[in-house]
């Protein structure tokens, strides 16, 4: 059977492996179950958007469906080579390598995947070290105790003819401090062990808000269709992820914004228009609203309808105040994001939205599509500047698969960006504000 006619079998195998019903997959992709049935029995040719949609819904690379496991291996090798392009890897011979040494090739791809996972762990831990107040306090406690021990023990060793009372006193202090140090170190280890499960460690109102929104998939069906503010209050009151009053206030604000956006862009109509053409600027025209409203609305749709979507928002200080994570684009927790993100670019040009393909350092050649726009929350007065907020919508980049990224002339350009300077390996970056532990050989 020719290669192309096997696509249906692979789709069926993967769907069954994922425990998904045919009707569910068809619904997610936006095709009829009977059409999907024909595809799965290799009675319809498939490609383009439908193949990409199915691959997205099944969470696999399209190449795995269209070309099989060997093609995926070759794709993995090319991705691994992409991160080492400067070292002269023979990427053109990836196919030959995979064919002659499939075991070694799989090992290489596997190691590359692990290196990427470790990179993300480093990013998470570094971000915590820089911004986590609990960790900062714990480290401060440990260092203070070490300081007391060092200073006291030096006195005991270096002071000649130290009076017995002082000796006893300093011995007691060292004993006391060594116990504190042991407790502090144990507590720190317990805390760092918990870092592996980053979502389980919630330490600030913003983290609580993110956990709350994530737990709900960023979508609240009860707030669709003109729900009153009492519904939002009930959702917040019943949310287990919201522990602090500050987080509950933040959540209430977020849900009020959600309610306003849902009123302006009703769910059924948005979905209908998105099926017709999901370009945000077109939706803004259709619904007569600004781009930030459309961005927020798209990021509040269920993933089964909108596909993969990320959104990050900041205020004029650059502090990140909202994040809907995107699996292939890392975002720091609070602040200190890469200055090259278009998110910050639009703060200085609120009337001009930006669309650009981004390639984030440390993630091979993979790109995402970023759409950024700023809004003014309140005009300037003589006492203070205008209150600005910027938003960046992140979508899968399909321009390298032969699909338009939205028709803009800048589609072909790719901007290299990082996560934050501390963990960014980009060399010679004009926007760098501090040295990188990665570039320095961490």
């Amino acid at each position, binding site marked *: 059977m020719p290669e192309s006619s096997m696509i249906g079998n692979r789709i069926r195998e993967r769907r069954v492996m994922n425990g998904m019903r045919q009707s569910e997959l068809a619904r997610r992709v936006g095709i009829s179950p009977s059409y999907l049935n024909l595809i799965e029995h290799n009675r319809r040719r498939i490609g383009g958007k439908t193949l990409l949609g199915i691959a997205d819904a099944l969470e696999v690379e399209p190449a795995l469906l269209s070309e099989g496991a060997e093609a995926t291996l070759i794709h993995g090798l090319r991705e691994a080579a992409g991160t080492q392009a400067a070292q002269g890897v023979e990427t053109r011979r990836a196919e030959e390598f995979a064919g002659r040494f499939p075991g070694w090739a799989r090992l290489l791809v596997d190691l590359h995947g692990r290196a990427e996972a470790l990179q993300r762990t480093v990013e998470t831990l570094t971000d915590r070290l820089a911004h986590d107040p609990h960790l900062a306090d714990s480290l*401060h406690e440990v260092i203070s105790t070490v*300081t007391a021990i*060092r200073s006291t023990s030096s*006195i005991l060793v270096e002071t000649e003819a130290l009076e017995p009372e*002082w000796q006893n006193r300093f011995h007691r*202090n060292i004993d006391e401090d060594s116990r504190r140090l042991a407790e502090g170190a144990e507590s720190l280890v317990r805390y760092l062990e918990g870092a592996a499960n980053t979502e389980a460690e919630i330490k600030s109102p913003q983290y609580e808000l993110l956990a709350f929104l994530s737990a709900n998939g960023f979508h609240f069906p009860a707030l669709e269709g003109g729900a009153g503010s009492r519904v939002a209050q009930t959702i917040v009151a019943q949310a287990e992820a919201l522990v602090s009053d500050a987080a509950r206030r933040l959540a209430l604000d977020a849900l009020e914004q959600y309610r306003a956006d849902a009123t302006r862009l009703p769910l059924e109509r948005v979905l209908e228009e998105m099926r017709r053409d999901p370009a945000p600027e077109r939706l803004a025209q259709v619904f007569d609203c600004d781009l930030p409203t459309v961005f927020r609305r798209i990021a509040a749709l269920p993933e089964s309808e909108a596909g993969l979507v990320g959104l990050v928002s900041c205020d004029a200080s650059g502090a990140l105040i909202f994040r809907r994570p995107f699996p292939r684009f890392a975002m720091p927790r609070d602040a200190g994001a890469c200055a090259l993100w278009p998110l910050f670019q639009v703060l200085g040009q609120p009337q001009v939205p930006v669309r650009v393909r981004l390639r984030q350092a440390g993630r091979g050649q993979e790109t995402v599509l970023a759409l950024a726009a700023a809004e003014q929350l309140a005009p300037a007065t003589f006492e203070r500047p205008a209150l600005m907020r910027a938003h960046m919508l992140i979508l899968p980049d399909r321009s390298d698969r032969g699909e338009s990224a939205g028709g803009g002339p800048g589609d072909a350009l790719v901007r290299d960006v990082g996560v934050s300077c501390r963990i960014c390996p980009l060399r010679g970056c004009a926007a760098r504000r*501090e040295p990188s532990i990665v570039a320095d050989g961490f």
Partner: protein
Amino acid sequence: MGRRVLLIEDEPNIIEAVSFILSRDGWDVKTHSNGHDAIDAVRARRPDLVILDVMLPGKSGFDILHEIRSDSELSGMPVLMLTARGQVKDRELAEQSGVNRFMTKPFSNADVLEVVRSMVAS
């Protein structure tokens, strides 16, 4: 009576150790252990040198340093910061706030003595 040092630090055993080594070196050491009224202690004691921790209960060492530099009668007072926060940005913030010297914990007693002597001599 030796020259006067005011040690503003909240860790009791560090207070005891630093007080001991400075006293043995001939300094008249007074201590204060919280941030919120530290500036009152500086005004009352009028020391020749202030040794200041950064993370204090009530008010940060950076804020206290700013208060010292903003007071016309205290603005010239030498200040040595001793802190566990040794990041570049903390050092820069301390320098912008007008600190004379900056030392990170853990420190050696000999280094502290040397720096204190040099600061007051100069």
